[in-house]
């Protein structure tokens, strides 16, 4: 049975200044209110909630103490849905006799499940509704026996209004409106109760989020549930966002830029010197004048000095900028990994390991190469082109104009190909991640692949992914392969034009041969730069795609956000856990609905139920690996969402079904949660976990290497190390998630001793498939399809002959059958009393 979270003890009323509800009959409950125990009868894959729970809210004084309008203002959501604001205002104006609106719900589906907007409005005496095509409001006065119930199935919620005679109305909505529907149901229950009893229910106990009914964590203005639903796409100018990582290296970047400027200028000196060399030395010599040796030496010396200066400056610039870009890349990697660690388990559930690894490894490397090589080259190119253009114009504007004429055409070409290539490369990346994912999927599952002789199929799957990779690459290469030669062609054509125009100008004596040769020398470099600049398009696109994929991670806000103003844990920390009306949805499947549970400090709770009944989910919520979709979990009276992770999780010990050992020594693994632990502490923990002796039997004792590539340990041994790990941090709250399921019965007995040491004096939540392992539990909580169906000590639940009894019966029967199969004689055992209990007593 459920524990009632809101009992009606007399002392609860007292602090509110209403010591006694008006004397007379107790507030009449609507006769059709669903008895709590009957809630098991929801449809299979769906779940439902009725308003009846809200009737448990204590009732307070009759109206008058507060006006209805004041009450409504306190409870109404902030603003009506935009599409219906007019209709609601109209309705409000038409209300008579102090009738007040208390809530509304916009439904986005009609009864045939087509997308169409509708609205349901709740006043203190009626429920009104209107569909998109209705011109009038339909209405149902609140009368005894009315029920408003919601269910959901495959992403569609339904809200049904019925009275004792039958169904009155059914509305449909997508789960986007689910929280609002829950709020409407709650309001409906309160209004109905108020209508029938004449007493006003107490206002909701705490500040709640205006969008969903979840209470706001203290000290926060934004509801963590709703703020995560703001879906804003990151900007496409992703590369500029790298500035955040470049900022710390501003000084070096500036120095590098100045060096770049100087070295580029130095490389432009030689062609300039060809002009006097041609006009003042070679041409006069051809015309019979002697060679001016001093001038030749000077010019040649100038060429050599320019080359040497360009070399040394270029070296310094490349070195500094490469150094900086490597650091930016390293920072990017660390930051991404750091951010990844803060993301919730939900994120890791959805992403595949191969893809994440490629993002952090390969993509950040690509960005690094881009910054240190490609971007550097590009900047040099741009500088070079600008400087060349200036020099050319200063020598001869007309010739400069002709030389630069093909530039816009090439610019247009680059721009045109840009878009195609960009998403082409993004596709290439995604397909590449797909190929890696196939590897990441099959290699860990290689035993299954081999056992079912599906090697060929897996090869075919890989081939298919690879073929897709090929197809995407082919498409990109088609564009890319036309691009490069076209740029080269335009270079040749450009040279041709300059030659033609130059020869004509020389023949007109407008310019000297020296000027023409200088131009040819410049534009040779100039176009070569354009050619390499065109390559920047592809690398920039690749780097931008990579940066986008990295920023996708960085922009991902954890669905389990760390609160801005954490409330310190109450000291001393006891470990009381209150679960209040908690619901959880994974995708469109409701895993938990309306779970209420109180766990006192030091108590041991056993969670029991079929697989898929939500046991692990509940534990994940208590650890705050996920946040509840609805309701709240409080630890020692403090909302879990307002605690800091690090502080809270320090008090949680977790022992999982498959203990994970990191590569390292046994001592390091035991001290994982407390790296500063002394050797004595580690040994004490190992002793308590019954691991000390087997560790000493290993060739290197506590220094033996374990984990991947390390010493092979049996399941029971690994489990005892993980128990020692949990013991060492001395947690107040202990979670055993199928801690003994992966081992045989004999090993379980070994571990059990270690577990008993661990459990002593701690709040413990244990999930176990084998019911016998829960013999020490103070209370058992039976979950079925996301609901708590029974709760109590073993004997009591057995006596009740309910869900637990059936589970227990089935398991004992199975055990007997196994025993019988083994040829043993079973003497009549009383199934109502487990053997383990006998032993314990």
């Amino acid at each position: 049975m459920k524990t009632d979270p809101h009992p009606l003890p007399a002392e609860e009323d007292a602090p509110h200044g209403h010591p006694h509800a008006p004397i007379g009959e107790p507030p009449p409950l609507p006769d059709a209110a669903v008895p709590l125990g009957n809630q098991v009868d929801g449809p299979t894959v769906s779940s439902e909630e009725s308003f009846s729970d809200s009737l448990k809210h204590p009732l307070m004084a009759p109206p008058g103490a507060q006006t209805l309008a004041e009450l409504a203002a306190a409870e109404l959501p902030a603003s009506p849905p935009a599409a219906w604001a007019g209709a609601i205002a109209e309705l409000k104006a038409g209300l008579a006799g102090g009738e007040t609106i208390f809530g509304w719900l916009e439904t986005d589906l009609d009864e045939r499940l087509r997308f169409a907007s509708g609205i349901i409005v709740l006043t203190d005496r009626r429920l009104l509704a209107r569909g998109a095509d209705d011109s009038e409001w339909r209405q149902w006065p609140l009368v005894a026996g009315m029920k408003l119930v919601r269910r959901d199935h495959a992403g569609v919620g339904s809200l049904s209004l019925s009275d004792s005679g039958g169904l009155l109305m059914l509305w449909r909505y997508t789960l986007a409106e689910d929280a609002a529907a829950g709020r409407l149901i709650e309001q409906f229950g309160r209004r109905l109760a108020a209508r029938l009893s004449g007493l006003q229910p107490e206002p909701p106990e705490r500040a709640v989020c205006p969008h969903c009914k979840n209470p706001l964590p203290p000290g926060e203005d934004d509801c963590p549930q709703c703020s995560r639903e703001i879906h804003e796409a990151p900007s496409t100018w992703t590369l500029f966002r790298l500035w955040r990582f470049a900022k710390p290296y501003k000084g070096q970047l500036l120095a590098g830029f100045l060096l770049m400027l100087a070295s580029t200028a130095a490389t432009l000196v030689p062609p300039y010197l060809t002009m006097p060399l041609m006009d003042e030395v070679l041409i006069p010599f051809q015309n019979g004048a002697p060679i001016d040796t001093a001038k030749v030496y000077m010019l040649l010396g100038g060429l050599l000095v320019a080359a040497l200066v360009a070399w040394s400056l270029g070296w310094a610039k490349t070195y500094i900028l490469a150094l900086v870009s490597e650091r930016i890349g390293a920072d990017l990697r660390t930051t991404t990994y750091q951010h990844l660690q803060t993301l919730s388990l939900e994120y890791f559930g959805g992403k595949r390991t191969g893809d994440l690894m490629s993002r952090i490894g390969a993509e950040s490397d690509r960005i690094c190469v881009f910054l240190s090589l490609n971007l550097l080259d590009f900047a040099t190119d741009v500088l070079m082109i600008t400087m060349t253009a200036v020099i050319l114009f200063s020598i001869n504007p007309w010739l400069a104009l002709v030389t630069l004429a093909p530039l816009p055409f090439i610019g247009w070409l680059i721009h045109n190909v840009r878009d195609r290539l960009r998403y082409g490369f993004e596709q290439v990346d995604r397909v590449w991640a797909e190929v890696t994912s196939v590897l990441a999927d099959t290699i860990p599952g290689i035993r299954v692949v081999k056992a079912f002789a599906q090697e060929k199929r897996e090869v075919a799957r890989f081939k298919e992914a690879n073929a897709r990779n090929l197809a995407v690459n082919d498409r990109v290469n088609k564009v890319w392969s036309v691009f490069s030669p076209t740029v080269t062609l335009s270079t040749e054509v450009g040279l041709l034009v300059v030659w033609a125009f130059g020869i004509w100008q020389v023949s007109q004596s407008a310019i000297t041969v020296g000027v023409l040769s200088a131009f040819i020398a410049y534009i040779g470099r100039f176009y070569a730069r354009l050619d390499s600049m065109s390559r920047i398009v592809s690398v920039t696109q690749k780097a931008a795609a990579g940066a986008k994929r990295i920023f996708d991670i960085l922009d991902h806000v954890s669905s389990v956000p760390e609160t801005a103003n954490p409330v310190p844990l109450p000291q001393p920390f006891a470990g009381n856990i209150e679960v209040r009306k908690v619901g959880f949805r994974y995708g469109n499947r409701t895993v938990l609905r309306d779970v209420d549970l109180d766990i006192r400090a030091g108590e041991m709770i056993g969670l029991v139920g079929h697989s898929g009944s939500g046991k692990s989910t509940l534990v994940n919520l208590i650890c705050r690996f996920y946040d509840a979709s609805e309701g709240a979990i409080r630890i020692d009276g403090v909302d879990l969402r307002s605690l800091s992770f690090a502080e809270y999780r320090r008090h949680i010990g977790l022992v999982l079904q498959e203990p994970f050992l990191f590569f390292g020594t046994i001592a390091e693994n035991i001290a994982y949660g407390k790296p500063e632990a002394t050797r004595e502490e580690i040994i004490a923990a190992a002793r308590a976990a019954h691991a000390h002796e087997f560790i000493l039997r290993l060739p290197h004792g506590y220094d033996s290497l374990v984990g991947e590539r390390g010493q092979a340990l049996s399941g029971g041994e690994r489990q005892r190390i993980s128990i020692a790990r949990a013991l060492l941090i001395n947690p107040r709250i202990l979670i055993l998630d199928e801690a003994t399921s992966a081992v045989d019965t004999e090993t379980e007995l070994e571990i059990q001793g270690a577990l008993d040491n661990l459990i002593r004096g701690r709040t413990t939540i244990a999930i176990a498939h084998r019911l016998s392992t829960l013999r020490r539990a103070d209370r058992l909580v039976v979950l079925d399809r996301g609901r708590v169906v029974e709760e109590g000590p073993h004997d009591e639940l057995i006596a009740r002959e309910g869900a637990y009894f059936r589970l227990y019966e089935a398991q004992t029967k199975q055990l007997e059958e196994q025993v019988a199969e083994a040829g043993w004689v079973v003497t009549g055992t009383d199934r109502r009393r487990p053997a383990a209990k006998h032993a314990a007593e």
Partner: protein
Amino acid sequence: MENPNLTATAFDLHRDSFGQLVFTAADGVEHVGVVPVRAFPISAPNGSLSLLSAEGHELAWIDEPQALREDLRTLIEDELASRDFMPVILRVNSVSSFATPSTWEIDTDRGPTRLVLKSEEEIRRLAPPALLIADAHGIHFLIRDRYALDAHSRKLLDRFL
């Protein structure tokens, strides 16, 4: 159930005043709140289906819904129509951005609406050329043949594949 030979006439169905389906088994036992479930909602939407009790146990397996008695079929189809929700995308009108999360304005066979795509991984490739897109609220949108969409939708969609 264990008995696969439950024939179409071995049970009876009717709808009660609360709108719930009531199943009457051959032995006269009544089950309220029966739910019809398609076995292969995507790959064979008109194929076999099962009737589950409110507790989730199979009451009857219907191999060929078409062969059912007329009134039973109508009841089951009505119930399925009010439960099955997998809008088919007919056209993608616009997307808010090519980076996720992205909001799409779409036309579906159930009218125009919008969906929020959390990440590209939410687009699942079914047997080609079908795609299944899960939106941020857990609704699954189906694209039966992505090559049969118009050029504009295809171009937008391509950016996410």
